[in-house]
Protein backbone atom coordinates (compact mmCIF):
# COMPACT_ATOMS: atom_id res chain seq x y z
CA UNK A 1 0.00 0.00 0.00
CA UNK A 2 2.71 2.45 1.00
CA UNK A 3 5.07 3.63 -1.69
CA UNK A 4 8.34 3.40 0.22
CA UNK A 5 10.39 4.88 -2.63
CA UNK A 6 8.54 8.17 -2.22
CA UNK A 7 9.23 8.10 1.51
CA UNK A 8 12.96 7.37 1.21
CA UNK A 9 13.42 9.90 -1.57
CA UNK A 10 11.86 12.63 0.54
CA UNK A 11 13.82 11.83 3.70
CA UNK A 12 16.63 14.37 3.05
CA UNK A 13 13.99 17.08 2.54
CA UNK A 14 12.27 16.02 5.76
CA UNK A 15 15.60 16.21 7.57
CA UNK A 16 15.95 19.80 6.40
CA UNK A 17 12.38 20.48 7.54
CA UNK A 18 13.18 19.02 10.94
CA UNK A 19 16.15 21.39 11.25
CA UNK A 20 13.97 24.40 10.41
CA UNK A 21 11.32 23.30 12.91
CA UNK A 22 13.84 22.77 15.71
CA UNK A 23 15.78 25.93 14.90
CA UNK A 24 12.68 28.08 14.97
CA UNK A 25 11.53 26.40 18.18
CA UNK A 26 14.91 26.93 19.87
CA UNK A 27 15.33 30.63 19.08
CA UNK A 28 11.68 31.41 19.89
CA UNK A 29 11.84 29.55 23.20
CA UNK A 30 15.12 31.18 24.19
CA UNK A 31 13.73 34.65 23.49
CA UNK A 32 10.50 33.76 25.25
CA UNK A 33 12.26 32.60 28.41
CA UNK A 34 14.49 35.66 28.48
CA UNK A 35 11.60 38.12 28.11
CA UNK A 36 8.91 36.38 30.12
CA UNK A 37 10.75 36.29 33.47
CA UNK A 38 11.02 40.10 33.85
CA UNK A 39 7.55 40.51 32.32
CA UNK A 40 6.06 38.06 34.82
CA UNK A 41 7.68 39.99 37.67
CA UNK A 42 6.16 43.18 36.22
CA UNK A 43 2.78 41.45 35.80
CA UNK A 44 2.51 40.61 39.51
CA UNK A 45 4.05 43.87 40.72
CA UNK A 46 2.02 46.36 42.76
CA UNK A 47 2.83 49.06 40.23
CA UNK A 48 -0.61 49.21 38.59
CA UNK A 49 0.25 50.88 35.24
CA UNK A 50 3.16 48.49 34.72
CA UNK A 51 1.16 45.38 35.59
CA UNK A 52 -1.69 46.67 33.43
CA UNK A 53 0.54 47.25 30.43
CA UNK A 54 1.88 43.68 30.62
CA UNK A 55 -1.68 42.40 30.96
CA UNK A 56 -2.74 44.23 27.79
CA UNK A 57 0.20 42.69 25.92
CA UNK A 58 -0.53 39.13 27.05
CA UNK A 59 -4.28 39.57 26.51
CA UNK A 60 -3.86 40.75 22.93
CA UNK A 61 -1.34 38.06 21.99
CA UNK A 62 -3.26 35.26 23.68
CA UNK A 63 -6.57 36.44 22.26
CA UNK A 64 -5.62 36.40 18.57
CA UNK A 65 -4.55 33.51 16.33
CA UNK A 66 -0.82 33.02 15.80
CA UNK A 67 -1.48 32.72 12.06
CA UNK A 68 -2.87 36.27 12.00
CA UNK A 69 0.01 37.58 14.13
CA UNK A 70 2.46 36.04 11.69
CA UNK A 71 0.62 37.58 8.72
CA UNK A 72 0.64 41.02 10.35
CA UNK A 73 4.42 40.80 10.75
CA UNK A 74 5.27 39.11 7.45
CA UNK A 75 2.75 40.70 5.06
CA UNK A 76 1.52 43.66 7.07
CA UNK A 77 4.65 45.71 7.72
CA UNK A 78 5.34 46.00 3.98
CA UNK A 79 2.39 48.41 3.80
CA UNK A 80 4.48 51.24 5.27
CA UNK A 81 6.96 52.89 2.89
CA UNK A 82 8.81 54.33 5.89
CA UNK A 83 9.50 50.78 7.12
CA UNK A 84 10.40 49.54 3.66
CA UNK A 85 13.07 52.21 3.36
CA UNK A 86 14.36 51.83 6.91
CA UNK A 87 17.38 49.88 8.09
CA UNK A 88 15.05 47.24 9.51
CA UNK A 89 13.73 46.23 6.10
CA UNK A 90 16.45 43.67 5.21
CA UNK A 91 15.38 41.87 8.40
CA UNK A 92 11.61 42.34 8.09
CA UNK A 93 11.75 41.06 4.52
CA UNK A 94 13.09 37.71 5.75
CA UNK A 95 10.52 35.00 6.49
CA UNK A 96 12.87 33.62 9.15
CA UNK A 97 13.05 36.88 11.04
CA UNK A 98 9.28 37.43 10.84
CA UNK A 99 8.52 33.92 12.05
CA UNK A 100 10.96 34.34 14.91
CA UNK A 101 9.46 37.70 15.89
CA UNK A 102 5.85 36.47 15.78
CA UNK A 103 6.56 33.15 17.53
CA UNK A 104 8.73 34.75 20.21
CA UNK A 105 6.16 37.45 21.00
CA UNK A 106 3.42 34.83 21.07
CA UNK A 107 5.16 32.35 23.36
CA UNK A 108 6.39 35.19 25.60
CA UNK A 109 2.77 36.17 26.23
CA UNK A 110 1.76 32.65 27.25
CA UNK A 111 4.92 32.01 29.28
CA UNK A 112 4.56 35.34 31.09
CA UNK A 113 1.10 34.33 32.31
CA UNK A 114 2.35 30.88 33.34
CA UNK A 115 5.21 32.36 35.37
CA UNK A 116 2.98 35.09 36.80
CA UNK A 117 0.50 32.46 37.96
CA UNK A 118 3.29 30.47 39.58
CA UNK A 119 4.64 33.59 41.30
CA UNK A 120 1.19 34.42 42.68
CA UNK A 121 0.93 30.91 44.08
CA UNK A 122 4.05 31.36 46.23
CA UNK A 123 3.25 30.20 49.76
CA UNK A 124 3.10 33.07 52.23
CA UNK A 125 5.60 31.50 54.58
CA UNK A 126 8.34 31.34 51.95
CA UNK A 127 8.30 35.10 51.49
CA UNK A 128 8.05 35.76 55.22
CA UNK A 129 10.94 33.46 55.99
CA UNK A 130 13.06 35.10 53.28
CA UNK A 131 12.22 38.57 54.59
CA UNK A 132 13.09 37.44 58.11
CA UNK A 133 16.53 36.54 56.78
CA UNK A 134 16.83 40.07 55.44
CA UNK A 135 16.31 39.29 51.74
CA UNK A 136 14.76 42.16 49.83
CA UNK A 137 14.18 43.45 46.33
CA UNK A 138 15.83 41.58 43.49
CA UNK A 139 17.72 39.26 45.82
CA UNK A 140 14.39 38.00 47.14
CA UNK A 141 13.36 37.28 43.55
CA UNK A 142 16.60 35.67 42.38
CA UNK A 143 17.15 33.47 45.40
CA UNK A 144 13.65 32.57 46.59
CA UNK A 145 10.68 33.62 44.50
CA UNK A 146 11.85 32.75 40.99
CA UNK A 147 13.38 29.32 41.72
CA UNK A 148 10.28 28.39 43.69
CA UNK A 149 7.93 29.64 40.96
CA UNK A 150 9.97 27.88 38.25
CA UNK A 151 9.27 24.55 39.95
CA UNK A 152 5.55 25.20 40.13
CA UNK A 153 5.48 26.43 36.51
CA UNK A 154 7.41 23.50 35.06
CA UNK A 155 4.49 21.20 34.09
CA UNK A 156 2.58 24.02 32.40
CA UNK A 157 5.72 25.33 30.75
CA UNK A 158 6.25 21.87 29.30
CA UNK A 159 2.79 22.05 27.74
CA UNK A 160 3.61 25.44 26.26
CA UNK A 161 6.84 24.11 24.73
CA UNK A 162 4.99 21.21 23.09
CA UNK A 163 2.30 23.64 21.92
CA UNK A 164 4.88 25.94 20.38
CA UNK A 165 6.57 23.02 18.65
CA UNK A 166 3.21 22.14 17.09
CA UNK A 167 2.65 25.80 16.23
CA UNK A 168 5.87 25.94 14.18
CA UNK A 169 3.87 24.10 11.48
CA UNK A 170 2.25 27.50 10.83
CA UNK A 171 5.61 28.84 9.64
CA UNK A 172 5.02 26.76 6.50
CA UNK A 173 2.54 29.44 5.39
CA UNK A 174 5.25 32.09 4.99
CA UNK A 175 7.65 30.21 2.69
CA UNK A 176 9.71 28.53 5.42
CA UNK A 177 10.43 24.95 4.42
CA UNK A 178 9.63 23.17 7.67
CA UNK A 179 8.34 19.61 8.13
CA UNK A 180 4.79 20.61 7.17
CA UNK A 181 5.92 22.46 4.04
CA UNK A 182 7.97 19.43 2.97
CA UNK A 183 4.93 17.20 3.50
CA UNK A 184 2.76 19.52 1.40
CA UNK A 185 5.38 19.59 -1.36
CA UNK A 186 5.74 15.80 -1.33
CA UNK A 187 1.95 15.52 -1.53
CA UNK A 188 1.75 18.05 -4.36
CA UNK A 189 4.34 16.11 -6.35
CA UNK A 190 3.17 12.55 -5.66
CA UNK A 191 -0.50 12.95 -4.62
CA UNK A 192 0.21 10.30 -1.98
CA UNK A 193 -1.33 11.61 1.24
CA UNK A 194 -0.33 8.84 3.66
CA UNK A 195 3.32 8.89 2.55
CA UNK A 196 3.59 12.68 2.76
CA UNK A 197 1.58 13.43 5.89
CA UNK A 198 2.32 10.11 7.56
CA UNK A 199 6.05 10.83 7.55
CA UNK A 200 5.44 14.33 8.88
CA UNK A 201 3.10 13.00 11.56
CA UNK A 202 5.70 10.43 12.62
CA UNK A 203 8.32 13.17 12.98
CA UNK A 204 6.03 15.44 14.99
CA UNK A 205 4.96 12.52 17.13
CA UNK A 206 8.57 11.63 17.91
CA UNK A 207 9.32 15.26 18.77
CA UNK A 208 6.25 15.49 21.00
CA UNK A 209 7.17 12.43 22.99
CA UNK A 210 10.82 13.41 23.24
CA UNK A 211 9.79 16.79 24.67
CA UNK A 212 7.22 15.26 27.01
CA UNK A 213 9.84 12.77 28.20
CA UNK A 214 12.41 15.53 28.61
CA UNK A 215 10.05 17.54 30.79
CA UNK A 216 9.24 14.43 32.84
CA UNK A 217 12.98 14.19 33.54
CA UNK A 218 13.19 17.88 34.42
CA UNK A 219 10.24 17.52 36.78
CA UNK A 220 11.86 14.46 38.33
CA UNK A 221 14.96 16.56 38.93
CA UNK A 222 13.39 19.85 40.04
CA UNK A 223 10.46 18.43 42.02
CA UNK A 224 12.64 15.91 43.85
CA UNK A 225 11.55 17.30 47.20
CA UNK A 226 7.94 16.36 46.45
CA UNK A 227 8.71 12.69 45.73
CA UNK A 228 7.61 10.18 48.35
CA UNK A 229 10.70 9.41 50.38
CA UNK A 230 11.89 5.86 50.79
CA UNK A 231 11.81 5.13 54.50
CA UNK A 232 15.36 5.08 55.85
CA UNK A 233 16.22 1.58 57.05
CA UNK A 234 16.50 1.29 60.81
CA UNK A 235 20.10 1.04 62.00
CA UNK A 236 21.09 -2.46 62.96
CA UNK A 237 23.01 -2.39 66.18
Amino acid at each position, binding site marked *: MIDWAVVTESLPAFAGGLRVCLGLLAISLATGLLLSVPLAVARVSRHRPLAGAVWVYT*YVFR*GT*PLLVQLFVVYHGFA*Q*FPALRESMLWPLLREAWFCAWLAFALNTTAYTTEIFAGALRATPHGEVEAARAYGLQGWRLYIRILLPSAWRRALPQYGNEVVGLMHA*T*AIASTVTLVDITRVARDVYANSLLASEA*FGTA*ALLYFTLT*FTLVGGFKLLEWRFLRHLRPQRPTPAHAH
Partner: protein
Amino acid sequence: MLHGYGPAILGGLWATLGVAAASLALACVFGLLGAVAKLSGVRALRWAAEVYTTLIRGLPELVLMLAIFYGGQTLLNSLAERHGWALIEIPPLAAGVGTIGFIFGAYLTETFRGAILAIPRGQAEAALACGMRRGQVLRRIVLPQMVRHAIPGFANNWLVMVKATALVSIIGLDDMVHRANLASAATREPFTFYMLIAGLYLAITTVSILALSRLEKRFSLGVRAVTF
Protein backbone atom coordinates in the same frame (compact mmCIF):
# COMPACT_ATOMS: atom_id res chain seq x y z
CA MET B 1 -10.21 53.27 4.75
CA LEU B 2 -11.36 49.71 4.02
CA HIS B 3 -11.95 50.46 0.31
CA GLY B 4 -15.38 48.90 0.50
CA TYR B 5 -14.08 45.59 1.89
CA GLY B 6 -15.80 46.07 5.27
CA PRO B 7 -18.90 44.01 4.44
CA ALA B 8 -16.76 41.22 2.95
CA ILE B 9 -14.71 40.97 6.14
CA LEU B 10 -17.87 40.99 8.25
CA GLY B 11 -19.24 38.19 6.09
CA GLY B 12 -16.02 36.33 6.84
CA LEU B 13 -16.62 36.88 10.54
CA TRP B 14 -19.93 35.04 10.26
CA ALA B 15 -18.20 32.22 8.39
CA THR B 16 -15.58 31.99 11.15
CA LEU B 17 -18.25 31.97 13.86
CA GLY B 18 -20.23 29.37 11.93
CA VAL B 19 -17.22 27.08 11.57
CA ALA B 20 -16.40 27.54 15.26
CA ALA B 21 -19.95 26.82 16.44
CA ALA B 22 -20.38 23.76 14.22
CA SER B 23 -16.94 22.43 15.21
CA LEU B 24 -17.78 22.94 18.87
CA ALA B 25 -20.99 20.92 18.55
CA LEU B 26 -19.09 18.12 16.82
CA ALA B 27 -16.26 18.29 19.36
CA CYS B 28 -18.77 17.94 22.19
CA VAL B 29 -20.13 14.76 20.60
CA PHE B 30 -16.63 13.30 20.14
CA GLY B 31 -15.65 14.48 23.62
CA LEU B 32 -18.62 12.86 25.32
CA LEU B 33 -18.16 9.60 23.41
CA GLY B 34 -14.45 9.65 24.24
CA ALA B 35 -15.03 10.37 27.93
CA VAL B 36 -17.66 7.64 28.27
CA ALA B 37 -15.37 5.22 26.39
CA LYS B 38 -12.42 6.07 28.64
CA LEU B 39 -14.51 5.41 31.76
CA SER B 40 -16.26 2.32 30.43
CA GLY B 41 -15.66 -1.21 31.62
CA VAL B 42 -14.90 -2.45 28.10
CA ARG B 43 -11.16 -2.62 27.57
CA ALA B 44 -11.30 -2.24 23.78
CA LEU B 45 -13.26 1.02 24.14
CA ARG B 46 -10.80 2.37 26.70
CA TRP B 47 -7.91 1.57 24.37
CA ALA B 48 -9.57 3.12 21.34
CA ALA B 49 -10.23 6.34 23.27
CA GLU B 50 -6.66 6.35 24.59
CA VAL B 51 -5.23 5.98 21.07
CA TYR B 52 -7.55 8.75 19.85
CA THR B 53 -6.51 11.32 22.46
CA THR B 54 -2.80 10.46 22.38
CA LEU B 55 -2.62 10.60 18.60
CA ILE B 56 -4.48 13.89 18.29
CA ARG B 57 -2.62 15.65 21.08
CA GLY B 58 0.75 14.55 19.71
CA LEU B 59 0.31 16.27 16.34
CA PRO B 60 -0.02 19.87 15.14
CA GLU B 61 -3.56 20.93 14.22
CA LEU B 62 -2.47 22.11 10.79
CA VAL B 63 -0.86 18.75 9.93
CA LEU B 64 -3.94 16.85 11.11
CA MET B 65 -6.13 19.15 9.09
CA LEU B 66 -4.09 18.68 5.92
CA ALA B 67 -3.82 14.93 6.50
CA ILE B 68 -7.55 14.50 6.98
CA PHE B 69 -8.44 16.87 4.14
CA TYR B 70 -6.10 15.40 1.52
CA GLY B 71 -5.99 11.89 2.96
CA GLY B 72 -9.78 11.75 3.20
CA GLN B 73 -10.07 12.89 -0.38
CA THR B 74 -7.58 10.26 -1.55
CA LEU B 75 -9.49 7.59 0.35
CA LEU B 76 -12.79 8.69 -1.16
CA ASN B 77 -11.27 8.75 -4.63
CA SER B 78 -9.94 5.21 -4.37
CA LEU B 79 -13.23 3.99 -2.91
CA ALA B 80 -15.11 5.65 -5.74
CA GLU B 81 -12.76 4.11 -8.28
CA ARG B 82 -13.12 0.63 -6.82
CA HIS B 83 -16.90 0.72 -6.61
CA GLY B 84 -17.48 2.73 -9.75
CA TRP B 85 -19.13 5.66 -7.92
CA ALA B 86 -19.05 9.20 -9.16
CA LEU B 87 -16.11 11.16 -7.74
CA ILE B 88 -17.08 12.85 -4.51
CA GLU B 89 -15.26 16.03 -3.59
CA ILE B 90 -15.10 16.87 0.11
CA PRO B 91 -16.41 20.42 0.52
CA PRO B 92 -13.87 22.55 2.42
CA LEU B 93 -16.51 23.47 5.00
CA ALA B 94 -17.15 19.83 5.91
CA ALA B 95 -13.41 19.14 5.98
CA GLY B 96 -12.72 22.13 8.21
CA VAL B 97 -15.54 21.49 10.65
CA GLY B 98 -14.87 17.75 10.63
CA THR B 99 -11.18 18.05 11.42
CA ILE B 100 -11.49 20.81 14.02
CA GLY B 101 -14.34 18.96 15.70
CA PHE B 102 -12.36 15.71 15.65
CA ILE B 103 -9.24 17.40 17.06
CA PHE B 104 -10.95 19.31 19.85
CA GLY B 105 -13.07 16.28 20.66
CA ALA B 106 -9.84 14.73 21.92
CA TYR B 107 -9.16 17.70 24.20
CA LEU B 108 -12.78 17.76 25.40
CA THR B 109 -12.55 14.02 26.12
CA GLU B 110 -10.06 14.83 28.88
CA THR B 111 -12.16 17.76 30.13
CA PHE B 112 -15.35 15.68 30.29
CA ARG B 113 -13.57 12.69 31.79
CA GLY B 114 -12.22 14.85 34.61
CA ALA B 115 -15.63 16.44 35.12
CA ILE B 116 -17.38 13.08 35.35
CA LEU B 117 -14.80 11.85 37.84
CA ALA B 118 -15.43 14.97 39.95
CA ILE B 119 -19.01 13.85 40.64
CA PRO B 120 -19.23 11.89 43.89
CA ARG B 121 -19.63 8.16 43.21
CA GLY B 122 -22.61 7.99 45.52
CA GLN B 123 -24.71 9.91 43.02
CA ALA B 124 -24.54 7.22 40.39
CA GLU B 125 -24.80 4.45 42.97
CA ALA B 126 -27.93 5.98 44.46
CA ALA B 127 -29.49 6.29 41.01
CA LEU B 128 -28.70 2.63 40.27
CA ALA B 129 -30.18 1.67 43.63
CA CYS B 130 -33.37 3.54 42.66
CA GLY B 131 -33.63 1.20 39.70
CA MET B 132 -32.41 3.43 36.88
CA ARG B 133 -30.73 1.81 33.95
CA ARG B 134 -27.13 2.78 33.06
CA GLY B 135 -28.22 5.01 30.18
CA GLN B 136 -30.68 6.77 32.46
CA VAL B 137 -28.03 7.31 35.13
CA LEU B 138 -25.79 8.90 32.53
CA ARG B 139 -28.49 11.10 31.05
CA ARG B 140 -30.34 12.14 34.20
CA ILE B 141 -27.68 12.17 36.91
CA VAL B 142 -24.12 12.24 35.58
CA LEU B 143 -24.30 14.58 32.57
CA PRO B 144 -26.30 17.42 34.21
CA GLN B 145 -23.95 17.50 37.18
CA MET B 146 -20.88 17.21 34.99
CA VAL B 147 -21.56 20.54 33.26
CA ARG B 148 -20.47 22.68 36.20
CA HIS B 149 -17.14 20.89 36.53
CA ALA B 150 -16.57 20.94 32.78
CA ILE B 151 -17.09 24.67 32.24
CA PRO B 152 -13.55 25.96 33.00
CA GLY B 153 -11.88 23.37 30.74
CA PHE B 154 -14.62 23.82 28.17
CA ALA B 155 -14.08 27.60 28.15
CA ASN B 156 -10.36 27.12 27.63
CA ASN B 157 -10.90 24.72 24.74
CA TRP B 158 -13.41 27.01 23.09
CA LEU B 159 -10.95 29.92 23.20
CA VAL B 160 -8.18 27.78 21.68
CA MET B 161 -10.61 26.41 19.10
CA VAL B 162 -11.80 29.81 17.86
CA LYS B 163 -8.19 30.69 17.17
CA ALA B 164 -7.59 27.32 15.48
CA THR B 165 -10.38 28.05 13.00
CA ALA B 166 -8.02 30.60 11.42
CA LEU B 167 -6.24 27.57 9.93
CA VAL B 168 -9.22 26.53 7.80
CA SER B 169 -8.32 29.31 5.38
CA ILE B 170 -5.31 27.16 4.45
CA ILE B 171 -7.50 24.35 3.13
CA GLY B 172 -9.53 26.81 1.09
CA LEU B 173 -12.38 27.81 3.36
CA ASP B 174 -13.75 31.29 2.78
CA ASP B 175 -13.41 32.51 6.38
CA MET B 176 -12.30 35.82 7.88
CA VAL B 177 -8.59 35.15 7.26
CA HIS B 178 -9.24 34.21 3.65
CA ARG B 179 -11.27 37.39 3.09
CA ALA B 180 -8.46 39.42 4.65
CA ASN B 181 -5.96 37.72 2.31
CA LEU B 182 -8.05 38.73 -0.69
CA ALA B 183 -8.61 42.28 0.53
CA SER B 184 -4.89 42.74 1.30
CA ALA B 185 -3.87 41.52 -2.11
CA ALA B 186 -6.35 43.79 -3.87
CA THR B 187 -5.70 46.97 -1.88
CA ARG B 188 -2.01 46.46 -1.00
CA GLU B 189 -2.88 47.32 2.58
CA PRO B 190 -2.23 44.05 4.39
CA PHE B 191 -1.54 45.68 7.75
CA THR B 192 -4.98 47.32 7.84
CA PHE B 193 -6.86 44.12 7.11
CA TYR B 194 -4.84 41.71 9.25
CA MET B 195 -5.04 44.13 12.16
CA LEU B 196 -8.78 44.44 11.59
CA ILE B 197 -9.36 40.69 11.79
CA ALA B 198 -6.99 40.45 14.77
CA GLY B 199 -9.29 42.97 16.47
CA LEU B 200 -12.34 40.90 15.55
CA TYR B 201 -10.77 37.72 16.98
CA LEU B 202 -9.98 39.66 20.14
CA ALA B 203 -13.61 40.76 20.31
CA ILE B 204 -14.79 37.14 19.99
CA THR B 205 -12.39 36.13 22.78
CA THR B 206 -13.55 38.94 25.06
CA VAL B 207 -17.26 38.26 24.54
CA SER B 208 -16.65 34.53 25.08
CA ILE B 209 -14.80 35.08 28.35
CA LEU B 210 -17.58 37.30 29.69
CA ALA B 211 -20.34 34.92 28.58
CA LEU B 212 -18.61 31.82 29.93
CA SER B 213 -17.97 33.35 33.33
CA ARG B 214 -21.70 34.16 33.57
CA LEU B 215 -22.51 30.61 32.52
CA GLU B 216 -20.23 29.28 35.23
CA LYS B 217 -22.01 31.43 37.84
CA ARG B 218 -25.36 30.20 36.57
CA PHE B 219 -24.40 26.54 36.90
CA SER B 220 -22.82 27.05 40.31
CA LEU B 221 -25.95 28.59 41.84
CA GLY B 222 -26.54 25.62 44.08
CA VAL B 223 -22.95 25.47 45.31
CA ARG B 224 -21.82 27.61 48.18
CA ALA B 225 -18.66 29.51 47.35
CA VAL B 226 -15.66 29.29 49.65
CA THR B 227 -14.76 32.62 51.16
CA PHE B 228 -11.24 33.17 52.39
